[in-house]
Structure formats: structure tokens, C-alpha cells
């Protein structure tokens, strides 16, 4: 029965949740669920997993812009129908995985993928730069300081070589978030690209009382910079600009406090975070570059700075050493020296836990 706009409650189905996962498992996955014994990466982007039953599944991982049109999804379906029995999956970092259950099906799949222009780059496994986790940017959100998809495209173009190879000392996970809300969860990435504002919001006093809940706005400020204030006849707020660190959280609560500014906004780069518990504990990413201007359409300074960091790391780190582990070994003094990045006041923490980041030992390198 089709939808009836005049009676939306008719036949209404709610709270059914997602389809059960195994409905979409290819047979080889279903049959070998929990029985996998080991895996091997046969070449960058191509994995085999071997089951205790002897079964094998071959996976080809391909990079994708996370923003996909229905046309591209249909193209993916065409490939999956032709080679993979009509199944496909996405990874947690927005790559696409095509799987086949027999080695003989592998090369035809790869050939097919390669035949389709540059839509389906193969890679993202092992010690590579895999896909960049990112957010909406100027495509959809209201608080971004930067675009997301465009920067990701520019960076991946430049690092393309590292996507389809295993030449790095370890995995390098790059993420992007277009504002301090960090939807890209960039706070624990090997390299993080973060959109930053640098001007306190301006206040549209005549709008505040109509479009905002003043107490919520005040509560939203992490540094308690906002106070209520009467301006003329308007109930409004004032901002202690010295306390503002440009997070935009007040703007999220109140559209009458615009914070974006084409010339003020830009990018901060962070390095050395990780998530896995492998060898060392998960770590936050730390500030590497406090500010780079927005340079659409291809953000050359950002791209080149990331490349520089990546290449210094690649040439200096030991095998298995994630970016943060490498820096922990050589020390931040050497990181800044080797990358040629400037160490500035902005690098020294001055927020709540600042004192836990200061160097409280005479151990350092000259």
C-alpha cells in the first residue's frame, strides 16, 4: 500500500530498527562467521581471510569520496552484482569492500574496478594512508570554519601514492572536522585537520531575544565568557572577548551570534593521536600548526604541510611506529626541528588540564 499523505498513521511502521545484519552477509561470510583463522594482505588493497573450514574470502578495498551520488552507488551495485553475488560493504572509514569467495574471481574483479577510470582506487590496507574520515563542511552544516570534502580531495590527491602502497612505517589515519565539535573524531588521529574560527561571534542584539534561549547560550560557553546584558530595549548578552576561544558553541545555540569569517577562519593541524591499544595506549592528537588560512579550492599550504609532516615521519620513524609513537621517541623538540614547523605560544596548553602537559623534568634534548 503506498503512502497516503492525508493519513500518515495509516499502516505506519515505526521502531523496527535496521535490518538484521546477517540478512546482508554474503554466503561465505555467513558460513564462516566466527571461524576465521588468519588473513593476509596479498597486495595493497587486497586481502584474503582464511577460515578454519578452509574457505577463503578475498576482499578488494577501494577508496571513495564519502559523498556518493546514487549514480555511483548504482555503479557499485553493478560491480557487486557482476562479481560478488550482489553483496558489498563499507568500512568504518568509508572505503568500499568488494568480496569474492574464490581466488579465481579476484583478478576479474580487480580488472573491472581498474577499468572504471579513477572511481575505484584500490588500497587503504596496511601501512598506508587510508581514507580520510571527515564531516560535512560547506556541504551541509551551519558551523563549519572550513569545507570538508574539498580539502579531503586535495589531500588525498597529493597523498595518493600512500593510499595504494605500504611504504609507511605504520598506518597513518588522517581525519578532518570542520569545527571544534569534531564530528570527525579527529581528536585521536595520526594527523588531524581541524577547522578553526579566530574571531569571537558578533552579536545581533535585536535578534537575540527572539531566536535564542539566553540561559542556554550562557551555559553553552565552555569558558564562561558570556553574560546576560540589556542593550537598549533588547534582552541580549555580552561576550568577554578575552575569554573566547572561538569554539562556536554559542552560535550552535543561537543563530544571532555569527562566528564565521572568511578571512579569520582556517585550519589547525594536529598530530600523533591514535585509537588502537596496540603497543601503546590510545592518545590524543596534539597541536602541530596553529593556523593555516582557508585556501580554496585546493588548500595548497595545508596539503603541503601535511605532506611534509608525513614524509619526515616516513623517513624517520621505525617500522610499526605510529606518528605519535615516533614523536614520543624522538621528542617534540625534534619533531618541530625536523619538520621545520614553528613552535609558538599557541602550542603551550592554557586550558583546564594545562599543567599536566608542561615539562616537569630536566629530560629534554638540545
Amino acid at each position: 500500500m503506498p503512502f497516503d499523505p492525508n493519513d500518515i498513521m495509516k499502516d505506519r511502521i515505526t521502531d523496527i530498527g535496521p535490518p538484521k545484519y546477517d540478512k546482508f552477509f554474503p554466503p561465505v561470510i555467513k558460513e564462516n562467521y566466527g571461524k576465521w583463522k588468519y588473513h593476509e594482505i596479498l597486495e595493497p588493497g587486497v586481502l584474503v581471510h582464511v577460515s578454519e573450514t578452509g574457505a577463503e574470502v578475498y576482499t578488494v578495498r577501494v577508496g571513495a569520496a564519502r559523498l556518493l551520488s546514487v549514480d555511483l552507488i548504482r555503479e557499485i551495485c553493478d560491480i557487486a552484482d557482476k562479481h560478488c553475488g550482489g553483496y558489498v560493504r563499507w568500512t568504518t572509514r568509508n572505503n568500499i569492500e568488494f568480496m569474492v569467495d574464490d581466488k579465481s574471481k579476484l583478478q576479474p574483479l580487480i580488472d573491472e574496478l581498474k577499468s572504471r577510470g579513477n572511481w575505484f582506487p584500490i588500497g587503504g590496507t596496511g601501512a598506508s594512508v587510508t581514507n580520510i574520515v571527515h564531516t560535512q563542511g560547506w556541504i551541509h552544516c551551519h558551523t563549519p570554519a572550513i569545507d570538508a570534502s574539498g580539502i579531503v580531495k586535495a589531500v588525498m590527491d597529493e597523498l595518493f601514492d600512500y593510499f595504494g602502497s605500504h611504504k609507511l612505517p605504520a598506518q597513518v589515519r588522517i581525519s578532518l572536522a570542520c569545527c571544534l565539535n569534531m564530528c570527525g573524531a579527529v581528536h585521536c588521529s595520526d594527523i588531524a585537520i581541524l577547522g578553526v574560527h579566530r574571531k569571537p561571534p558578533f552579536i545581533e542584539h535585536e535578534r537575540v531575544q527572539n531566536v535564542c534561549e539566553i540561559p542556554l547560550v550562557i551555559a553553552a560557553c565552555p569558558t564562561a565568557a558570556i553574560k546576560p546584558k540589556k542593550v537598549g530595549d533588547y534582552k541580549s548578552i555580552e561576550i568577554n572577548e578575552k575569554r573566547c576561544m572561538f569554539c562556536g558553541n554559542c552560535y550552535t545555540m543561537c543563530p544571532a551570534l555569527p562566528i564565521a569569517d572568511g578571512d579569520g577562519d582556517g585550519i589547525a593541524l594536529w598530530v600523533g593521536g591514535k585509537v588502537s591499544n596496540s603497543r601503546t595506549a590510545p592518545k590524543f592528537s596534539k597541536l602541530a600548526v596553529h593556523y593555516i588560512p582557508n585556501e580554496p579550492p585546493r588548500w595548497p599550504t595545508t596539503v603541503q604541510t601535511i605532506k611534509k609532516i608525513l614524509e619526515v615521519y616516513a623517513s624517520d620513524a621505525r617500522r610499526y611506529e605510529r606518528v605519535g609513537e615516533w614523536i614520543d621517541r624522538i621528542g617534540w623538540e625534534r619533531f618541530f626541528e625536523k619538520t621545520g614547523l614553528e613552535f609558538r605560544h599557541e602550542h603551550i596548553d592554557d586550558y583546564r588540564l594545562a599543567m599536566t602537559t608542561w615539562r616537569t623534568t630536566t629530560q629534554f634534548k638540545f
Partner: protein
Amino acid sequence: MALKHKTPMLDELEKGPWPSFVTDIKRVAERKPMAEDLLGLLEMSYEHKEGHWKHGGIVGVFGYGGGVIGRYCDRPDLFPNVAHFHTMRVNQPASKFYTTEVLRKLCDIWEEKGSGLTNMHGSTGDIILLGTTTDQLEPIFYELTHDLGMDLGGSGSNMRTPSCCVGKARCEWSCIDTQDITYDITMRYQDELHRPMFPYKFKFKTSGCPNDCVAAIARADCSIIGTWRDKIRIDQEAVRAYVGGELVPNGGAHGTEKRALDIQKEVIDLCPTKCMEWDGKNLKIWDEDCTRCMHCINVMPRALRPGLDTGATILVGAKAPILEGAQLGSVVIPFIKMEPPYEEFHEFVEKMWDWWMEEGKNRERLGETIQRLGMKAFLEATELQPDPRMVNTPRYNPYIFYDPAEVPGGWSHDPKAYRERHHA
């Protein structure tokens, strides 16, 4: 067909080897004005170096408090087709396997009723249908539920769409059924997912092992991470094969050529607890000292495997920086058997939520409530016993809030007796 808006800057993003979202949008733009105006609006954002979206209003489907992000453009005069451009979050199947059948149906719906553009997937894990108008929300929802058996995901102050790593479906290391746990949570807490009643958002993420391929520890209010508490399984033959160069180390992650593994340098020395020894023939692991970091297993996947007494470590409180700063998850249950029907876990979750709903302030993430009220309050509410595994170090400040119940006379003094002993 030429597009309505000139996009000289975006055109630059059609170059280069990585797939171009611009080229992709352009082909839809040829037939869909919404995508066409999106390109124009985006080009203007590139010129201004400022986004052009306003705050979303409250839009959604009837009876749900989340799942749709309302969005309006701030120049409808120039780009009327994206005047409304709401996204719908569709709850993905756990670990994101699909049939082409369901994907094609989804594309058809979205071709007809939306922009034709998606994100596969959003950072939380949902399928993001990018851009439609208010009047399409109900029809899309109807078709999703009726034709696809799919439902919306979370947004707002509710439980967000849980997600997980590929786990046992295609990974040899998974210590728990990540998909099943994710499905169980999602289904059991449908009400919490669709009807915001929490102080703020709440996220679950489940990884099968400490490699944490879904980054649970960094971005889930409750992280479920598989682990084991017996011994690493060792195939000594295979260890020797790695050392002898017959097997490719790290499953080929560092190059697929065969080479002899320098087991001392590449494994033993990097073991964080130094609990391994290699005598040239056999590998010995003092499992009682192992912290199950996975490194040795990662490097020798054909020789080492996680133990068999598997379960999960539960951590809580991870989040992004707003307001009090970013947090990683903190261990609160070192080990729990995660087996259906997951009763022990449900009880924990419900006690945790009850406490947070009672105590949490508006827009305060669980981790922040714990920061504000102390871990003790959390552990007491969830009936968990303090354990040294919950801390990296015990406290180093002497600011201890002693429990008056343990002090003779509680908090009260006898001022008179005191002043008899001590003259003022």
C-alpha cells in the same frame, strides 16, 4: 548539458587521482535541480570562504525526536532548490554489509524524493541521505520502513545509532559478536533512539578486539571492546616459520614480500609489558603480565591468536571537546562475558542511564557528569566495585572525600569536650 551555475573553483576539484565528489555531484546535477543548486551554493562558499547554511529548524517524522537534521540555505534567493535541504539519517545494518538489492531500492527512493546525494556513511555510522524538503520526509520514511525494512537513526539528545567493526563476520580476532551486540542494543533501545529523553546524546560503539577498528574508545559514551582473559594461543611451528622467513610478517601490512621476521626487535622489544621471550626455538609468553595489546598477534597472525575465554572490557565517557574537553573512554568493567541475552550488560546500561538522567545537566555528556560528580558516584549507581584496572594511577592529590560512615562519630565533633581539652 551545461549547468546553471559557473563553478570554476569546484572544477579544480575534478582533477587528480582521487575520486571527485564534484564530478559525481555534477552528473546528478544534470537531472536534479537540487544537486545543481548545491553546486552553485558550494561554489559561493568557496568564494566567501564561509558556509551558507542556516540553523536547522525542528523537522522530522511524526513520533520521532531524531533522525532528521533540518537545514535551510541562507541565500534561497539565489539557490531556491536548496532552500530546504534536510538530511535523513538511516540506521545502517551493523558493520555495513549490503545487498545490491537494498542499495538499489534506496537509490530509487532517494532519486525520486531527495537530492540523489548521500554520505556512505556518516561519522556515527548512519547512511546519510543528504538533502530533501520537509514534505518528503514522511513519504521517504514510509518507503524506508515498508519497502526496505529500514528505520531512521539517531540525532538530538537520544541514543545515537550504535556501530561496530566487521568483527567475526570477517576478522579472526574478534572476541565478541560485534554485530549481534550492536543489533541487540539498537533493537532493545529503539525508544531511547527515536525519542530524545537524555541530557544529551549517547553513543555506543563495539570493537571485537583492542585494535578497535571502530574507534570506540575515542568516541563512544559507552565503548564495548572485545578481549580475553586466558592465554594467547601459540602455534610454535608458525612462529618459527615467521622467523625463518616463510610467512609474511604482519599479514603483509608492511610489504607483501617474504622476509625473515626479526622477532626480538619487531615483537619482543615492542611488547609494552616485556612479557615475552624467544629462545631461538620457542616463544614464551608470561600471560599473567600480558595486557592484551594485540601487537604480537598483529605481527604474527598465523602463529598467535587471542585466548578462548573471551568477553569485553567496558569503558565509558569518550567524547569530542565540547564543553569540558575531549575524553577517551575510561575502564569501568574490566571484563564482562558478552553473551546473549546480554542481561548483565542491559542492567548496567539501564542503571547508568537512570543515574545520568537523574544527575546529568542539560547538554552534559555522560563523561562530563562523571567528571563533575566523581567516579565513585557513577560506580555506586551502577553497582560496580572499584578496581585498580579503572585507573592509570591512584589519586596523587590528598583531597580525599572520606566517607563519614567510617569515621567514629561521623562528621560531628564534640565542641565542648574539645574546648575542655584545648583552651581557646
